[in-house]
Protein backbone atom coordinates (compact mmCIF):
# COMPACT_ATOMS: atom_id res chain seq x y z
CA UNK A 1 0.00 0.00 0.00
CA UNK A 2 1.40 3.40 -1.04
CA UNK A 3 0.91 6.01 1.66
CA UNK A 4 0.73 9.81 1.50
CA UNK A 5 4.44 10.17 2.13
CA UNK A 6 5.12 7.88 -0.80
CA UNK A 7 6.43 5.05 1.33
CA UNK A 8 4.94 1.66 1.78
CA UNK A 9 3.17 0.01 4.69
CA UNK A 10 3.85 -3.68 4.93
CA UNK A 11 1.69 -6.54 6.11
CA UNK A 12 3.00 -8.24 9.25
CA UNK A 13 3.73 -11.50 7.42
CA UNK A 14 5.61 -9.76 4.62
CA UNK A 15 7.69 -7.92 7.19
CA UNK A 16 8.46 -11.13 9.09
CA UNK A 17 9.51 -12.66 5.78
CA UNK A 18 11.86 -9.74 5.07
CA UNK A 19 13.45 -10.05 8.53
CA UNK A 20 13.74 -13.83 8.23
CA UNK A 21 15.52 -13.39 4.88
CA UNK A 22 18.14 -11.22 6.56
CA UNK A 23 18.98 -14.14 8.87
CA UNK A 24 18.68 -16.81 6.20
CA UNK A 25 20.82 -15.00 3.61
CA UNK A 26 23.84 -14.63 5.90
CA UNK A 27 24.81 -11.33 4.31
CA UNK A 28 27.40 -9.18 6.01
CA UNK A 29 25.70 -6.36 7.92
CA UNK A 30 27.08 -3.16 9.46
CA UNK A 31 25.64 -3.02 12.96
CA UNK A 32 25.88 -1.80 16.53
CA UNK A 33 26.19 -4.36 19.33
CA UNK A 34 22.79 -3.57 20.78
CA UNK A 35 21.13 -4.34 17.45
CA UNK A 36 23.09 -7.56 17.17
CA UNK A 37 21.63 -8.70 20.50
CA UNK A 38 18.05 -8.04 19.35
CA UNK A 39 18.65 -10.02 16.16
CA UNK A 40 20.29 -12.84 18.13
CA UNK A 41 17.25 -13.03 20.41
CA UNK A 42 15.09 -13.27 17.31
CA UNK A 43 17.31 -16.02 15.88
CA UNK A 44 17.25 -17.90 19.20
CA UNK A 45 13.44 -17.82 19.10
CA UNK A 46 13.03 -15.70 22.21
CA UNK A 47 9.36 -14.99 22.97
CA UNK A 48 9.29 -11.96 25.21
CA UNK A 49 11.48 -9.16 26.48
CA UNK A 50 10.70 -7.34 29.71
CA UNK A 51 12.80 -4.29 30.32
CA UNK A 52 13.29 -0.85 31.71
CA UNK A 53 15.35 1.77 29.86
CA UNK A 54 18.90 2.42 30.88
CA UNK A 55 21.91 3.48 28.85
CA UNK A 56 23.84 1.92 27.19
CA UNK A 57 21.46 -0.96 26.42
CA UNK A 58 18.43 1.02 25.18
CA UNK A 59 18.68 0.07 21.52
CA UNK A 60 18.27 -3.59 22.45
CA UNK A 61 14.76 -2.71 23.58
CA UNK A 62 14.26 -0.36 20.63
CA UNK A 63 15.19 -2.97 18.03
CA UNK A 64 13.46 -5.88 19.78
CA UNK A 65 10.28 -3.82 20.02
CA UNK A 66 10.61 -3.07 16.31
CA UNK A 67 11.30 -6.67 15.21
CA UNK A 68 9.24 -8.78 17.61
CA UNK A 69 5.66 -7.82 16.62
CA UNK A 70 6.15 -9.10 13.07
CA UNK A 71 6.70 -12.55 14.58
CA UNK A 72 3.92 -12.29 17.16
CA UNK A 73 6.47 -11.99 19.94
CA UNK A 74 6.25 -9.45 22.71
CA UNK A 75 7.81 -6.63 24.64
CA UNK A 76 6.73 -4.99 27.86
CA UNK A 77 8.30 -1.99 29.50
CA UNK A 78 7.79 -2.60 33.20
CA UNK A 79 7.80 0.02 35.94
CA UNK A 80 11.36 -0.77 36.98
CA UNK A 81 14.08 -3.42 36.79
CA UNK A 82 12.79 -5.31 39.83
CA UNK A 83 9.55 -5.88 37.99
CA UNK A 84 11.30 -6.67 34.69
CA UNK A 85 13.28 -9.44 36.42
CA UNK A 86 10.28 -11.04 38.10
CA UNK A 87 8.00 -10.83 35.07
CA UNK A 88 10.73 -12.65 33.16
CA UNK A 89 10.52 -15.48 35.67
CA UNK A 90 6.74 -15.55 35.33
CA UNK A 91 7.12 -15.87 31.58
CA UNK A 92 9.63 -18.68 31.99
CA UNK A 93 7.24 -20.52 34.34
CA UNK A 94 4.53 -20.66 31.69
CA UNK A 95 6.94 -21.79 29.01
CA UNK A 96 8.09 -18.59 27.30
CA UNK A 97 11.68 -17.77 26.41
CA UNK A 98 12.13 -14.47 28.17
CA UNK A 99 14.98 -12.01 28.41
CA UNK A 100 15.97 -8.57 29.56
CA UNK A 101 18.81 -6.13 29.13
CA UNK A 102 20.17 -3.69 31.65
CA UNK A 103 23.25 -2.03 33.08
CA UNK A 104 24.68 -0.51 36.25
CA UNK A 105 22.02 0.35 38.84
CA UNK A 106 19.50 -1.69 36.82
CA UNK A 107 21.78 -4.70 37.14
CA UNK A 108 21.66 -4.29 40.93
CA UNK A 109 17.85 -4.12 40.98
CA UNK A 110 17.57 -7.29 38.92
CA UNK A 111 19.75 -9.32 41.29
CA UNK A 112 16.82 -10.15 43.57
CA UNK A 113 14.88 -11.88 40.82
CA UNK A 114 18.06 -13.48 39.47
CA UNK A 115 18.76 -14.89 42.92
CA UNK A 116 15.27 -16.37 42.99
CA UNK A 117 15.90 -17.90 39.56
CA UNK A 118 19.08 -19.43 40.97
CA UNK A 119 17.22 -21.00 43.87
CA UNK A 120 14.27 -22.24 41.82
CA UNK A 121 16.41 -23.09 38.79
CA UNK A 122 14.41 -20.94 36.41
CA UNK A 123 15.86 -20.08 33.00
CA UNK A 124 16.28 -16.58 31.64
CA UNK A 125 18.75 -14.50 29.66
CA UNK A 126 20.08 -11.18 30.87
CA UNK A 127 22.16 -8.93 28.64
CA UNK A 128 24.39 -6.62 30.67
CA UNK A 129 25.94 -3.66 28.86
CA UNK A 130 28.33 -2.47 31.55
CA UNK A 131 28.51 1.24 32.33
CA UNK A 132 30.69 3.14 34.79
CA UNK A 133 30.02 2.85 38.51
CA UNK A 134 29.45 3.06 41.44
CA UNK A 135 25.83 4.17 41.16
CA UNK A 136 24.79 6.14 38.08
CA UNK A 137 28.38 7.24 37.32
CA UNK A 138 28.81 7.25 33.52
CA UNK A 139 26.49 5.95 30.83
CA UNK A 140 29.53 5.14 28.74
CA UNK A 141 31.60 2.09 29.51
CA UNK A 142 33.35 -0.07 32.09
CA UNK A 143 34.11 -3.65 33.08
CA UNK A 144 33.06 -2.94 36.63
CA UNK A 145 30.01 -5.21 36.58
CA UNK A 146 32.03 -8.39 36.21
CA UNK A 147 31.73 -9.35 39.86
CA UNK A 148 28.07 -8.28 40.20
CA UNK A 149 27.09 -10.21 37.08
CA UNK A 150 29.03 -13.38 37.90
CA UNK A 151 28.26 -13.57 41.63
CA UNK A 152 25.64 -10.92 42.37
CA UNK A 153 23.00 -12.94 44.19
CA UNK A 154 22.84 -13.82 47.86
CA UNK A 155 23.66 -17.36 48.93
CA UNK A 156 26.23 -18.37 46.30
CA UNK A 157 23.80 -18.93 43.46
CA UNK A 158 25.13 -20.34 40.24
CA UNK A 159 24.95 -18.80 36.79
CA UNK A 160 26.42 -18.90 33.33
CA UNK A 161 28.08 -15.71 32.04
CA UNK A 162 29.53 -15.07 28.57
CA UNK A 163 31.87 -12.13 28.02
CA UNK A 164 32.09 -11.16 24.36
CA UNK A 165 34.68 -9.22 22.38
CA UNK A 166 33.22 -8.78 18.88
CA UNK A 167 29.81 -8.41 17.30
CA UNK A 168 30.11 -11.85 15.74
CA UNK A 169 30.79 -13.38 19.13
CA UNK A 170 28.00 -11.29 20.66
CA UNK A 171 25.53 -12.72 18.14
CA UNK A 172 26.67 -16.31 18.65
CA UNK A 173 27.02 -16.10 22.45
CA UNK A 174 23.54 -14.64 22.79
CA UNK A 175 22.07 -17.59 20.88
CA UNK A 176 24.12 -19.99 23.03
CA UNK A 177 22.94 -18.15 26.13
CA UNK A 178 19.29 -18.83 25.27
CA UNK A 179 20.00 -22.47 24.48
CA UNK A 180 22.02 -23.12 27.60
CA UNK A 181 19.67 -21.22 29.90
CA UNK A 182 16.81 -23.52 28.90
CA UNK A 183 19.00 -26.60 28.78
CA UNK A 184 20.71 -26.28 32.17
CA UNK A 185 18.28 -23.95 33.94
CA UNK A 186 20.80 -21.58 35.44
CA UNK A 187 20.31 -17.84 34.92
CA UNK A 188 22.43 -16.96 31.90
CA UNK A 189 24.13 -13.69 31.01
CA UNK A 190 25.86 -12.00 28.15
CA UNK A 191 28.28 -9.47 29.60
CA UNK A 192 28.92 -6.69 27.13
CA UNK A 193 29.74 -3.03 27.72
CA UNK A 194 28.91 0.44 26.43
CA UNK A 195 31.57 0.31 23.74
CA UNK A 196 30.33 -2.99 22.36
CA UNK A 197 26.76 -1.72 22.64
CA UNK A 198 27.41 1.34 20.49
CA UNK A 199 30.32 0.51 18.23
CA UNK A 200 29.69 -0.46 14.62
CA UNK A 201 31.34 -3.25 12.71
CA UNK A 202 30.47 -5.88 10.11
CA UNK A 203 28.77 -9.04 11.34
CA UNK A 204 27.22 -12.03 9.60
CA UNK A 205 23.78 -12.72 11.01
CA UNK A 206 22.50 -16.24 10.46
CA UNK A 207 19.63 -18.56 11.08
CA UNK A 208 21.05 -21.08 13.58
CA UNK A 209 18.76 -23.82 12.30
CA UNK A 210 20.23 -23.51 8.80
CA UNK A 211 23.64 -24.10 10.39
CA UNK A 212 22.31 -27.16 12.21
CA UNK A 213 22.45 -25.50 15.60
CA UNK A 214 19.91 -27.07 17.90
CA UNK A 215 17.45 -24.52 19.27
CA UNK A 216 16.27 -25.68 22.68
CA UNK A 217 12.53 -25.15 23.02
CA UNK A 218 10.96 -23.64 26.14
CA UNK A 219 8.32 -25.74 27.89
CA UNK A 220 5.92 -24.79 30.65
CA UNK A 221 7.59 -25.29 34.01
CA UNK A 222 4.72 -24.58 36.41
CA UNK A 223 1.58 -24.91 34.29
CA UNK A 224 2.22 -28.29 32.73
CA UNK A 225 -0.70 -30.18 31.26
CA UNK A 226 -2.16 -33.20 33.08
CA UNK A 227 -3.50 -33.72 36.59
CA UNK A 228 -0.80 -33.57 39.27
CA UNK A 229 -0.26 -36.87 41.17
CA UNK A 230 -2.60 -38.74 38.80
CA UNK A 231 -1.11 -38.06 35.38
CA UNK A 232 2.24 -36.52 36.28
CA UNK A 233 4.44 -35.61 39.21
CA UNK A 234 3.51 -32.36 40.88
CA UNK A 235 5.75 -29.37 40.23
CA UNK A 236 7.00 -28.00 43.51
CA UNK A 237 9.32 -25.07 42.99
CA UNK A 238 10.64 -23.62 46.21
CA UNK A 239 12.72 -20.71 47.28
CA UNK A 240 11.96 -21.19 50.97
CA UNK A 241 13.07 -24.11 53.15
CA UNK A 242 12.35 -25.03 56.73
CA UNK A 243 15.52 -26.79 57.76
CA UNK A 244 19.21 -26.46 56.99
CA UNK A 245 19.61 -30.01 55.72
CA UNK A 246 16.79 -29.59 53.25
CA UNK A 247 18.50 -26.55 51.71
CA UNK A 248 21.90 -28.26 51.81
CA UNK A 249 20.56 -31.24 49.84
CA UNK A 250 19.08 -29.00 47.14
CA UNK A 251 22.22 -26.86 46.86
CA UNK A 252 24.42 -29.97 46.62
CA UNK A 253 22.35 -31.02 43.63
CA UNK A 254 22.78 -27.55 42.07
CA UNK A 255 26.55 -27.72 42.60
CA UNK A 256 26.74 -31.12 40.93
CA UNK A 257 24.65 -29.83 37.98
CA UNK A 258 26.86 -26.75 37.70
CA UNK A 259 30.05 -28.83 37.63
CA UNK A 260 28.54 -31.00 34.90
CA UNK A 261 27.44 -27.97 32.91
CA UNK A 262 30.93 -26.48 33.21
CA UNK A 263 32.48 -29.38 31.27
CA UNK A 264 30.05 -28.75 28.41
CA UNK A 265 29.90 -24.96 28.17
CA UNK A 266 33.23 -23.53 29.29
CA UNK A 267 34.91 -21.50 26.51
CA UNK A 268 38.08 -19.48 26.10
CA UNK A 269 40.41 -18.15 23.46
CA UNK A 270 44.20 -18.49 23.68
CA UNK A 271 47.05 -17.78 21.30
CA UNK A 272 50.29 -15.95 20.61
CA UNK A 273 53.81 -17.38 20.79
CA UNK A 274 54.19 -21.08 21.45
CA UNK A 275 56.86 -20.48 24.09
CA UNK A 276 56.29 -17.31 26.04
CA UNK A 277 57.80 -15.10 28.71
CA UNK A 278 54.57 -13.20 29.21
CA UNK A 279 50.86 -14.02 29.28
CA UNK A 280 48.13 -11.37 29.02
CA UNK A 281 44.79 -12.25 30.56
CA UNK A 282 41.83 -10.02 29.68
CA UNK A 283 38.14 -10.46 28.91
CA UNK A 284 35.57 -8.76 26.70
CA UNK A 285 36.56 -5.72 24.68
CA UNK A 286 39.85 -5.39 26.61
CA UNK A 287 40.56 -8.99 25.61
CA UNK A 288 40.22 -7.87 22.01
CA UNK A 289 42.68 -5.00 22.59
CA UNK A 290 45.04 -7.48 24.28
CA UNK A 291 44.96 -9.88 21.32
CA UNK A 292 45.71 -7.04 18.92
CA UNK A 293 48.62 -5.92 21.14
CA UNK A 294 50.00 -9.47 21.40
CA UNK A 295 49.95 -9.85 17.61
CA UNK A 296 51.91 -6.61 17.22
CA UNK A 297 54.60 -7.47 19.77
CA UNK A 298 54.86 -11.05 18.44
CA UNK A 299 55.80 -9.49 15.11
CA UNK A 300 58.48 -7.50 16.92
CA UNK A 301 59.91 -10.76 18.26
CA UNK A 302 58.53 -10.67 21.81
CA UNK A 303 57.40 -14.02 23.20
CA UNK A 304 53.90 -13.27 24.47
CA UNK A 305 50.71 -15.31 24.76
CA UNK A 306 47.15 -14.25 25.47
CA UNK A 307 44.29 -15.90 27.34
CA UNK A 308 40.75 -14.56 26.99
CA UNK A 309 38.01 -16.28 29.00
CA UNK A 310 34.73 -16.30 27.03
CA UNK A 311 32.67 -17.89 29.78
CA UNK A 312 33.71 -15.85 32.80
CA UNK A 313 31.50 -18.03 34.95
CA UNK A 314 32.11 -20.93 34.98
CA UNK A 315 35.68 -19.69 34.53
CA UNK A 316 38.07 -21.73 32.36
CA UNK A 317 40.46 -21.99 35.30
CA UNK A 318 41.93 -25.40 34.41
CA UNK A 319 42.91 -24.20 30.95
CA UNK A 320 44.57 -21.08 32.37
CA UNK A 321 46.36 -23.05 35.08
CA UNK A 322 47.65 -25.53 32.51
CA UNK A 323 49.33 -22.78 30.45
CA UNK A 324 50.86 -21.13 33.51
CA UNK A 325 52.00 -24.28 35.29
CA UNK A 326 53.87 -25.48 32.21
CA UNK A 327 56.10 -22.38 32.27
CA UNK A 328 57.31 -21.48 35.77
CA UNK A 329 59.08 -18.32 34.51
CA UNK A 330 55.97 -17.01 32.75
CA UNK A 331 54.97 -13.55 33.95
CA UNK A 332 51.25 -12.72 33.87
CA UNK A 333 49.58 -9.40 33.07
CA UNK A 334 45.89 -8.94 33.86
CA UNK A 335 44.28 -5.93 32.13
CA UNK A 336 40.74 -4.73 32.81
CA UNK A 337 38.60 -1.59 32.95
CA UNK A 338 37.90 -2.30 36.61
CA UNK A 339 39.82 -2.26 39.87
CA UNK A 340 40.80 -5.91 40.07
CA UNK A 341 37.64 -7.98 39.51
CA UNK A 342 39.04 -10.34 36.87
CA UNK A 343 42.38 -10.10 38.67
CA UNK A 344 40.97 -11.68 41.85
CA UNK A 345 39.53 -14.60 39.88
CA UNK A 346 42.86 -15.14 38.08
CA UNK A 347 44.71 -15.10 41.43
CA UNK A 348 42.27 -17.62 42.87
CA UNK A 349 42.60 -19.92 39.88
CA UNK A 350 46.41 -19.75 39.98
CA UNK A 351 46.69 -20.08 43.75
CA UNK A 352 49.87 -21.85 44.78
CA UNK A 353 51.83 -21.17 41.61
CA UNK A 354 54.85 -18.91 41.99
CA UNK A 355 54.46 -16.90 38.76
CA UNK A 356 54.47 -13.11 39.07
CA UNK A 357 51.10 -11.47 38.38
CA UNK A 358 51.16 -7.85 37.21
CA UNK A 359 48.04 -5.82 36.56
CA UNK A 360 46.84 -2.87 34.50
CA UNK A 361 43.63 -1.65 36.09
CA UNK A 362 41.61 1.30 34.78
CA UNK A 363 38.23 1.37 36.53
CA UNK A 364 35.60 2.75 34.18
CA UNK A 365 38.13 3.76 31.53
CA UNK A 366 38.79 2.20 28.13
CA UNK A 367 42.03 0.35 27.47
CA UNK A 368 43.54 0.49 23.99
CA UNK A 369 45.71 -2.05 22.21
CA UNK A 370 48.50 0.58 22.14
CA UNK A 371 48.49 0.89 25.93
CA UNK A 372 48.77 -2.87 26.40
CA UNK A 373 51.44 -3.02 23.72
CA UNK A 374 53.55 -0.48 25.60
CA UNK A 375 53.33 -2.48 28.83
CA UNK A 376 54.16 -5.73 27.04
CA UNK A 377 57.25 -4.14 25.49
CA UNK A 378 58.33 -2.86 28.91
CA UNK A 379 57.67 -6.15 30.76
CA UNK A 380 58.99 -8.26 27.91
CA UNK A 381 62.46 -6.74 27.97
CA UNK A 382 64.99 -9.24 29.27
CA UNK A 383 66.81 -8.15 32.38
CA UNK A 384 70.44 -7.16 31.94
Amino acid sequence: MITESGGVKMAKETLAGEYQEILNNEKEMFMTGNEVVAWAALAAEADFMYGYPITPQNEIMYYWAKLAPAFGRGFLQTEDEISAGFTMLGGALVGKKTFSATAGPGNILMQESISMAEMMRLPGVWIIQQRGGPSTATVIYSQQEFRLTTTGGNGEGMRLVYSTSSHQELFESTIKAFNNAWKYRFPTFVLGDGYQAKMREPVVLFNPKLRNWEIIAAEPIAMKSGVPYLERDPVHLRNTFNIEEELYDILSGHLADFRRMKQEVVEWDEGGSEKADLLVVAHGIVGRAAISAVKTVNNQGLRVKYFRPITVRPFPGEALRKIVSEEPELKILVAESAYGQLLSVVKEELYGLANTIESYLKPGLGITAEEIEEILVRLGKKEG
Partner: protein
Amino acid sequence: MQRILEAYVGEYASGKSENAVNRSLQLIKKGRKVRLVDLDVVEPFYTLRPLKKILEQMGIDVLAWETAETIGLGEAAIPLKKETIRALEFDGDLIFDLGYGIDGCNILKIIKDSSGEEKEEKIKIIMVVNITRPLTSSVPLILKMVNEFEEVDGLINNTHLGEETTIELIQKGAIMVTEVAKKLSLPVVATTALRDLASRIGEFDVMGNKVWPIDRYMSKAIW
Protein backbone atom coordinates in the same frame (compact mmCIF):
# COMPACT_ATOMS: atom_id res chain seq x y z
CA MET B 1 22.19 33.49 -4.15
CA GLN B 2 19.65 31.14 -2.68
CA ARG B 3 20.76 29.50 0.52
CA ILE B 4 20.91 25.74 0.94
CA LEU B 5 18.78 24.23 3.70
CA GLU B 6 19.16 20.49 4.21
CA ALA B 7 18.32 18.06 6.99
CA TYR B 8 19.87 14.59 7.13
CA VAL B 9 17.65 11.80 8.40
CA GLY B 10 17.70 8.03 8.28
CA GLU B 11 18.05 4.78 10.14
CA TYR B 12 20.21 4.67 13.28
CA ALA B 13 23.90 4.41 12.29
CA SER B 14 23.11 5.02 8.61
CA GLY B 15 25.75 7.75 8.35
CA LYS B 16 23.58 10.83 8.89
CA SER B 17 26.14 12.77 10.92
CA GLU B 18 29.05 11.79 8.69
CA ASN B 19 27.13 12.96 5.64
CA ALA B 20 25.97 16.18 7.30
CA VAL B 21 29.55 17.00 8.33
CA ASN B 22 30.94 16.23 4.88
CA ARG B 23 28.19 18.18 3.14
CA SER B 24 28.99 21.19 5.33
CA LEU B 25 32.67 20.97 4.44
CA GLN B 26 31.84 20.55 0.77
CA LEU B 27 29.90 23.84 0.88
CA ILE B 28 32.64 25.61 2.88
CA LYS B 29 35.15 24.64 0.20
CA LYS B 30 32.92 26.34 -2.37
CA GLY B 31 33.32 29.51 -0.35
CA ARG B 32 29.85 29.43 1.17
CA LYS B 33 28.92 30.34 4.71
CA VAL B 34 27.68 27.25 6.54
CA ARG B 35 26.03 26.51 9.83
CA LEU B 36 25.84 22.89 11.01
CA VAL B 37 23.13 22.22 13.57
CA ASP B 38 23.29 19.17 15.79
CA LEU B 39 19.69 18.14 16.39
CA ASP B 40 20.48 14.56 17.33
CA VAL B 41 18.58 14.54 20.57
CA VAL B 42 18.17 10.79 20.53
CA GLU B 43 20.51 9.47 23.16
CA PRO B 44 23.51 9.49 23.44
CA PHE B 45 22.47 12.81 21.91
CA TYR B 46 24.39 15.50 20.16
CA THR B 47 26.81 13.18 18.44
CA LEU B 48 28.75 16.11 17.02
CA ARG B 49 29.83 17.22 20.51
CA PRO B 50 33.35 15.79 20.33
CA LEU B 51 33.88 17.25 16.85
CA LYS B 52 32.68 20.77 17.53
CA LYS B 53 36.10 22.40 17.88
CA ILE B 54 37.64 20.64 14.87
CA LEU B 55 34.76 21.66 12.62
CA GLU B 56 34.79 25.24 13.87
CA GLN B 57 38.48 25.48 12.98
CA MET B 58 37.52 24.40 9.47
CA GLY B 59 35.21 27.36 9.19
CA ILE B 60 31.81 25.87 9.99
CA ASP B 61 29.49 27.61 12.40
CA VAL B 62 28.57 24.66 14.65
CA LEU B 63 25.55 24.70 16.91
CA ALA B 64 26.13 21.85 19.32
CA TRP B 65 26.76 21.27 22.99
CA GLU B 66 30.24 20.64 24.24
CA THR B 67 30.62 17.44 26.24
CA ALA B 68 31.63 19.22 29.43
CA GLU B 69 28.45 21.35 29.27
CA THR B 70 26.19 18.29 29.36
CA ILE B 71 25.12 15.93 32.10
CA GLY B 72 24.41 12.25 31.57
CA LEU B 73 24.62 12.38 27.78
CA GLY B 74 20.88 12.65 27.34
CA GLU B 75 19.89 10.10 29.96
CA ALA B 76 18.87 12.80 32.40
CA ALA B 77 17.32 15.33 30.02
CA ILE B 78 17.35 16.49 26.43
CA PRO B 79 18.05 20.20 26.51
CA LEU B 80 17.92 22.27 23.34
CA LYS B 81 20.25 25.25 23.26
CA LYS B 82 18.38 28.51 22.89
CA GLU B 83 20.64 29.39 19.97
CA THR B 84 19.64 26.10 18.36
CA ILE B 85 15.94 26.85 18.58
CA ARG B 86 16.59 30.02 16.55
CA ALA B 87 19.05 28.27 14.25
CA LEU B 88 17.35 29.52 11.09
CA GLU B 89 18.28 33.10 11.94
CA PHE B 90 21.57 32.87 10.06
CA ASP B 91 22.55 34.38 6.74
CA GLY B 92 24.04 31.32 5.12
CA ASP B 93 23.51 27.66 4.36
CA LEU B 94 22.11 25.40 7.08
CA ILE B 95 22.76 21.71 7.47
CA PHE B 96 20.79 19.86 10.13
CA ASP B 97 21.92 16.54 11.58
CA LEU B 98 18.83 14.81 12.94
CA GLY B 99 18.53 11.84 15.30
CA TYR B 100 17.23 8.55 13.99
CA GLY B 101 13.58 7.81 13.46
CA ILE B 102 10.61 10.11 13.54
CA ASP B 103 11.71 11.87 16.75
CA GLY B 104 14.48 13.50 14.76
CA CYS B 105 11.91 15.07 12.40
CA ASN B 106 9.78 16.28 15.29
CA ILE B 107 12.69 18.31 16.61
CA LEU B 108 13.07 19.93 13.21
CA LYS B 109 9.44 21.05 13.45
CA ILE B 110 10.20 22.82 16.74
CA ILE B 111 12.99 24.72 15.01
CA LYS B 112 10.76 25.64 12.07
CA ASP B 113 7.93 26.75 14.36
CA SER B 114 10.29 28.88 16.44
CA SER B 115 11.67 30.66 13.43
CA GLY B 116 10.55 34.27 13.41
CA GLU B 117 10.81 34.51 9.66
CA GLU B 118 7.78 35.40 7.65
CA LYS B 119 8.40 33.53 4.45
CA GLU B 120 8.46 29.76 4.74
CA GLU B 121 11.72 28.38 3.41
CA LYS B 122 11.78 24.78 2.37
CA ILE B 123 14.22 22.57 4.25
CA LYS B 124 15.14 19.61 2.06
CA ILE B 125 14.91 16.32 3.94
CA ILE B 126 17.57 13.90 2.76
CA MET B 127 17.45 10.29 3.85
CA VAL B 128 20.81 8.56 4.17
CA VAL B 129 20.72 4.86 3.30
CA ASN B 130 23.29 2.14 3.90
CA ILE B 131 21.98 -1.17 2.55
CA THR B 132 24.16 -3.13 4.98
CA ARG B 133 22.02 -1.81 7.82
CA PRO B 134 19.48 -4.61 8.39
CA LEU B 135 16.38 -2.42 8.48
CA THR B 136 17.28 -0.81 5.13
CA SER B 137 18.74 -3.88 3.45
CA SER B 138 16.04 -4.46 0.81
CA VAL B 139 13.83 -2.35 -1.44
CA PRO B 140 10.65 -3.09 0.59
CA LEU B 141 12.41 -2.30 3.89
CA ILE B 142 13.77 1.02 2.61
CA LEU B 143 10.29 1.92 1.33
CA LYS B 144 8.92 1.09 4.76
CA MET B 145 11.45 3.40 6.40
CA VAL B 146 10.65 6.25 4.01
CA ASN B 147 7.05 5.82 5.14
CA GLU B 148 8.07 6.37 8.76
CA PHE B 149 9.30 9.87 7.96
CA GLU B 150 6.63 12.36 7.06
CA GLU B 151 8.46 13.68 4.07
CA VAL B 152 11.62 12.83 2.23
CA ASP B 153 12.95 14.93 -0.65
CA GLY B 154 15.94 12.88 -1.74
CA LEU B 155 18.05 9.84 -0.98
CA ILE B 156 21.77 9.37 -0.45
CA ASN B 157 23.39 6.00 -1.03
CA ASN B 158 25.93 5.71 1.78
CA THR B 159 26.43 1.96 1.53
CA HIS B 160 29.57 0.70 3.27
CA LEU B 161 30.88 -1.98 5.63
CA GLY B 162 33.45 0.11 7.48
CA GLU B 163 36.94 -1.03 6.58
CA GLU B 164 35.56 -3.93 4.56
CA THR B 165 33.82 -1.70 2.01
CA THR B 166 34.29 -2.65 -1.65
CA ILE B 167 33.38 -0.80 -4.84
CA GLU B 168 31.08 -3.68 -5.76
CA LEU B 169 29.14 -3.19 -2.52
CA ILE B 170 28.80 0.57 -3.04
CA GLN B 171 27.45 -0.07 -6.56
CA LYS B 172 24.98 -2.62 -5.18
CA GLY B 173 23.78 0.10 -2.84
CA ALA B 174 23.48 2.50 -5.77
CA ILE B 175 21.30 0.03 -7.68
CA MET B 176 18.99 -0.60 -4.73
CA VAL B 177 18.69 3.05 -3.66
CA THR B 178 18.03 4.13 -7.25
CA GLU B 179 15.28 1.52 -7.55
CA VAL B 180 13.62 2.92 -4.42
CA ALA B 181 14.04 6.49 -5.66
CA LYS B 182 12.37 5.62 -8.97
CA LYS B 183 9.41 4.04 -7.20
CA LEU B 184 8.96 7.18 -5.13
CA SER B 185 9.85 9.67 -7.88
CA LEU B 186 12.62 11.05 -5.69
CA PRO B 187 16.12 12.09 -6.75
CA VAL B 188 19.22 10.24 -5.62
CA VAL B 189 21.23 13.21 -4.36
CA ALA B 190 24.51 11.29 -4.45
CA THR B 191 26.41 8.14 -3.68
CA THR B 192 28.89 8.93 -0.93
CA ALA B 193 32.09 6.98 -0.47
CA LEU B 194 35.43 7.44 1.25
CA ARG B 195 37.78 9.53 -0.85
CA ASP B 196 39.98 6.72 -2.23
CA LEU B 197 37.01 4.49 -3.08
CA ALA B 198 35.17 7.45 -4.61
CA SER B 199 38.10 8.27 -6.88
CA ARG B 200 38.16 4.68 -8.07
CA ILE B 201 34.45 4.76 -8.90
CA GLY B 202 34.74 8.04 -10.80
CA GLU B 203 32.41 10.98 -11.10
CA PHE B 204 29.23 8.88 -11.37
CA ASP B 205 28.16 5.52 -9.95
CA VAL B 206 26.84 2.61 -11.99
CA MET B 207 23.35 4.16 -12.02
CA GLY B 208 24.58 7.58 -13.14
CA ASN B 209 24.24 9.24 -9.72
CA LYS B 210 26.85 11.79 -8.67
CA VAL B 211 29.60 10.43 -6.41
CA TRP B 212 30.56 12.61 -3.45
CA PRO B 213 33.89 11.77 -1.87
CA ILE B 214 33.76 11.94 1.93
CA ASP B 215 36.27 11.77 4.78
CA ARG B 216 35.70 10.08 8.11
CA TYR B 217 35.16 12.40 11.05
CA MET B 218 32.68 10.47 13.17
CA SER B 219 35.22 7.79 14.11
CA LYS B 220 36.51 10.44 16.52
CA ALA B 221 33.08 10.64 18.13
CA ILE B 222 31.85 7.21 19.20
CA TRP B 223 30.25 8.68 22.34
